[in-house]
């Protein structure tokens, strides 16, 4: 039987299609919820780094170390640390949140540090208190850098979720374990295609989100007024 026929048979089953949708939804949820947590952690790290510049180095090193832990090892270790069962999907969410944060902390710290001194000084001089200044001035200006990091993290998470299938929680990853065990290639092909599509769609949405959040980075609506407007 050719691969095309196999795929036809595989996708012909309403039962399979329902399973695929469920796996896709689970995959999206397992990959994207950690983005949210990771961003919150990175924003917190940025705040620490801005308030106590001397901890920036430590934060960056810790983030790097976390990112070097192999994902499978982390999936297996986390239940022991936070007391969940090995099959709990929270394990994957926690692990990927850590990876996301690890990926975002360094660019976050750099982006906050790169806000022009004239801008932070004038914010302070205008009567911003530190917390409000961070959320009102520095964080919005860090969005372009943060958004680039989030795009990388999102794609990375979407691919890492599949690894979760080895501990029984893996969204589309289960199509791979399933296909390998049965030497049945249709679910593997469908799994790869759906993973790619998911990554593409998420990336596109993140690009749009970034555009919405950074209106000041779009080209001018009218031609730049080079001439001084006479008083």
């Amino acid at each position, binding site marked *: 039987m050719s691969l095309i026929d196999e795929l036809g048979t595989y996708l012909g089953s309403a039962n399979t299609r329902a399973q695929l949708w469920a796996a896709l939804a689970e995959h999206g949820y397992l990959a994207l919820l950690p983005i949210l947590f990771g961003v919150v952690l990175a924003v917190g790290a940025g705040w620490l780094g801005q308030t106590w510049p001397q901890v920036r180095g430590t934060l960056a090193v810790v983030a790097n170390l976390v990112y070097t832990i192999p994902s499978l090892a982390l999936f297996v270790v986390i239940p022991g640390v936070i007391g969940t069962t090995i099959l709990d999907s929270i394990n994957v969410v926690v692990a990927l949140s850590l990876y996301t944060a690890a990926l975002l902390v360094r660019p976050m710290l750099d982006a906050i540090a790169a806000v*022009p001194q*004239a*801008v932070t*000084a*004038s*914010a*302070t*001089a*205008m*009567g*911003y*208190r530190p917390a*409000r200044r961070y959320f009102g*001035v520095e964080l*919005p*200006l860090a969005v372009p850098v943060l958004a680039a990091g989030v795009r990388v993290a999102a794609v990375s998470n979407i691919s890492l979720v599949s690894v979760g299938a080895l501990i029984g929680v893996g969204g589309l990853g289960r199509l791979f374990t399933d296909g390998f065990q049965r030497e049945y290639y249709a679910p593997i092909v469908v799994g790869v295609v759906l993973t790619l599509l998911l990554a593409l769609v998420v990336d596109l949405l993140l690009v749009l989100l970034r555009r919405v959040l*950074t*209106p*000041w980075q779009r080209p*001018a*609506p009218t031609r*730049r*007024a*080079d*001439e*001084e*407007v*006479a*008083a």
Partner: protein
Amino acid sequence: MTIEFRGVTKRYGGGAAAVDELSLTVPDGSMTVFVGPSGCGKTTSLRMVNRMVEPTDGDVLLDGRNVRDIDPAELRRGIGYVIQHAGLFPHRTVLGNIATVPMLSGWSRRSARRRAGELLDTVGLPAELGSRYPAQLSGGQQQRVGVARALAADPPVLLMDEPFSAVDPVVREGLQDELLDLQRRLGKTIVFVTHDIDEAVRLGDRVAVLRVGGRLAQYGTPADVLRHPVDDFVAEFVGKDRGYRGLSFLSAGALEVGEVVTVEIGSVPGESGEWRLAIDDERRPRGWLAPGSTVDGSLAEADLVAGGSLYRRGTSLRGALDAALSSPASLGVVVDDDGAAVGVVTARHVLDVIERHPASATATSRTARA
């Protein structure tokens, strides 16, 4: 609001003083310019007013109230602040930038934006710029927005840290004029920092000259600092041509305006052995017709020698002397407020008036001594 520095010293890490025992008073509604070479502590001094820098010793008082006793954020919302490159928030529109302090002070969004719209007009910017982002504005426009932002909550005090030093000279002069005009209308108490003595004497009601190490060298009116520098440092800092610059403060009341032969553009000039001033149909000077020059038919702009600077009647002697010195005919053209030529002055005329001027006598003797 009166600003008083009382024995203010700032030392960083126990080292040399950045500001050393600074004591001076900026009277209510006046503009004081801190001027000096880099490292003289002028910006540090400025920043001690709004507690961006805390003094090691001494006090800064606003209307007799020690700034140490005021919550920093609250204090700063009552003090406008303008810096070089404006320091605008790149992620906020022009209106959003201007509305910053009102929003921080808890105004409603609607009234903050309405106020921002008014200020756009105050600083001479068209309303349609309100929805632009700072990166879409020219340097001069950004600086105006910076001034508007500082004025938004109508603070009694304005701190300006080299606000115009990053814009080109022509735009800078325009901004300086507008600041003076704004000051006449609003009567804020302003501390202005610059390294440019010309800007200092142009803007300040008083000028504080600071020397490296943060010591006040001289505090007085611009005319005073130019005419009677207290020591060699100030004399050198205010520059070699300070005598000439000092003319800015001498009024030309006694200056007699001489007659000049004029020819109108488009008329047939005939011949003459002297310089003749070419004017248009509204008597505005267009240039000079050189002695002995011949014109085929009627006079056109192409026949003329370009004129020098124009001297507006009633302004300072500096302009009068400059007009005479820059004119190809050695005759400075005097114009009225509408720009119409009313006559000429010679450098000799101007110098006569200067020598008869009582204040200039001391200036001359001081210069001779130095």
